[in-house]
């Protein structure tokens, strides 16, 4: 089982060199990287191969220097903008370019999220499906050339195609995609994911739950296609992020359901929302390091299968 750390926060706080050094010191051997270059240069999708390599060489060299592997690359911007529908071709080109970036950095997966369209739009569901399939088809064409798999991370929008378990399964079979499972988002959609939703901790403080309380569903359905699972959590009512194990998601049950597939799945410590919560205090390095250590320890504890 790979423990993957989100590198973005550390890169933003400390720069690539120092950020990667700290991640390595904290025990992380695998990280994820978020492509933010599209913020600075919307023509990112048109970069030549040479420019791409020149730009990412320092990153690649630093990864090698600190012995870090990239579990996957993600896109920071959505695959579609409702406010700027004419920019769809540009955004699609970003996704294809992200596949090439992943290949250059020695990474086998590029993660995107389903298209986001406002709920008031009457054909939002069909439009989001068409957009997502078009992007995936383009990514797959490029990915097949360079050995990079497109991956979808589910979000919490009810009216959007590509967030439900059955939809992800459909996409996995058609486009041979991987799935990065976001349990907190799945929980928001009331997908059947192991969690303490139907019976909360306060209902059964002894920790002994009746069998019907433990729902299976999404993990069981998708485990053959899973690239990774986000180690994130949410509290019961409003969907606000909390530290793993302190909310409703039953990660222990997720691991159990993964069974033999667990060793192949990367467990990503998704601490970005938590760091946002503490941003007033994040000048305190000791706190930053301790939080990252907490996340790593939490993920490492999931690797213990005995007793689970």
């Amino acid at each position, binding site marked *: 089982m790979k423990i993957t750390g989100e590198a973005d926060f550390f890169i933003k706080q400390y720069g690539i060199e120092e950020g990667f050094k700290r991640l390595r010191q904290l025990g992380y051997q695998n990280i994820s990287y978020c492509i933010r270059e599209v913020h600075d240069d919307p023509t990112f999708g048109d970069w030549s191969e040479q420019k791409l390599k020149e730009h990412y060489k320092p990153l690649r060299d630093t990864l090698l220097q600190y012995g870090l592997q990239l579990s996957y690359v993600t896109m920071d911007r959505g695959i579609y903008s409702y406010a700027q529908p004419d920019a769809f071709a540009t955004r699609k080109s970003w996704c294809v370019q992200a596949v090439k970036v992943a290949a250059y950095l020695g990474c086998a997966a590029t993660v995107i999220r389903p298209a986001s369209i406002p709920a008031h739009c009457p054909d939002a569901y069909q439009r989001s499906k068409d957009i997502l399939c078009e992007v995936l088809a383009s990514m797959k064409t490029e990915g097949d050339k360079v050995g990079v798999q497109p991956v979808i991370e589910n979000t919490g929008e009810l009216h959007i195609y590509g967030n439900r378990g059955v939809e992800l399964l459909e996409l996995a079979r058609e486009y041979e995609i991987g799935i990065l499972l976001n349990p907190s988002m799945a929980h928001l959609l009331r997908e059947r994911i192991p969690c303490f939703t139907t019976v909360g901790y306060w209902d059964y403080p*002894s920790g002994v739950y009746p069998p019907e309380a433990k729902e299976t569903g999404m993990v069981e359905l998708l485990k053959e296609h899973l690239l990774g699972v986000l180690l994130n959590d949410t509290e019961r009512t409003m969907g606000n992020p909390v530290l793993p194990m302190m909310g409703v998601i039953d990660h222990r049950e997720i691991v159990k359901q993964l069974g033999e597939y667990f060793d192949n799945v990367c467990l990503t410590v998704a601490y970005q929302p*938590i760091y946002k*919560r503490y941003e007033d*205090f994040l000048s305190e390095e000791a*706190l930053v390091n301790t939080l990252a250590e907490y996340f790593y*320890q939490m993920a490492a504890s999931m690797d213990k299968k005995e007793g689970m």
Partner: protein
Amino acid sequence: MKLGTIIAFRRETLGLSEGEEYKFLSECGFDSVDFSLSEPVTSPLWKLSDDELRERMLHEREMITKSGMIVGQTHSPYDYNLGCAWMNPEKRKEFWRVQVQAIKATSYLGAPYMVVHTLAIPGRISKEYYETAKQYNMGFFNYLKPYLEEYNVKVAIENLFSSDHVLGRMNKCNCSRAEDLIDYIDTLDSDRFVACLDIGHAQLCSEEPVDMIYKLGKKYLHVLHVHDNHLIRDEHMFPGAGKGDWNRIGRALNDIGYEGVFSYEISNPFYLRFPEIEKDMLPILHKMYVELGRAITGVK
């Protein structure tokens, strides 16, 4: 500002022998222990003779001191069956006796403060309710006064909440606001009574903790119970896990010149729920609490 905590884990979980739980907390970075005396009235602790109680508490004090920590505060037994002391004179008598024993225990531990819940009476909030409850509580606290003088202990009155079955949510009770705490303390007119601000309870009552800190000021605010929640249940989570505005809370405490302990009252998120990883996670969890506390209070 010192950092303190309750002990929310069983030492056996960490394979510690007697007294080592204090060393564990001290090594994590804590300075103070909130020693719980919140045993039910029927507990064997309250059947001990004065000498036995003293011996037991001195033993605990020795272990805590050896670890390098102090006992910043204790917590007296509270009325587990809310209102039963009010309704039953015999039970009331026994409950008040136990409070006196708790004062003695606090003194033997060397703790300056004992946190006490105000006594509950059945009913919903009204002017008449407040008056009746206040009168009842004044009788109770005045009963404790001579023992507080004798044993050199101060009572820190804690703000509470109630479960409002009509509204279907948590609500204020007879002593939830800063004004209530100040009113009680001023009426008692003795330096033996101070305020304990329970931040989580304030949130449940829709009272802004920052405002309460400024209203109580250094004069009244001597003790803290630090925890967080999502404004619905009394979850006792660590700061940041819920809805508390911890940046402003830290600033307010520094602004008023708070000199007490920043003392956590956080429940163990792994206990019973994830026992197989509890042992591995407790050390890093407590380390995180310390760093968070230092960041909030600006203490290095």
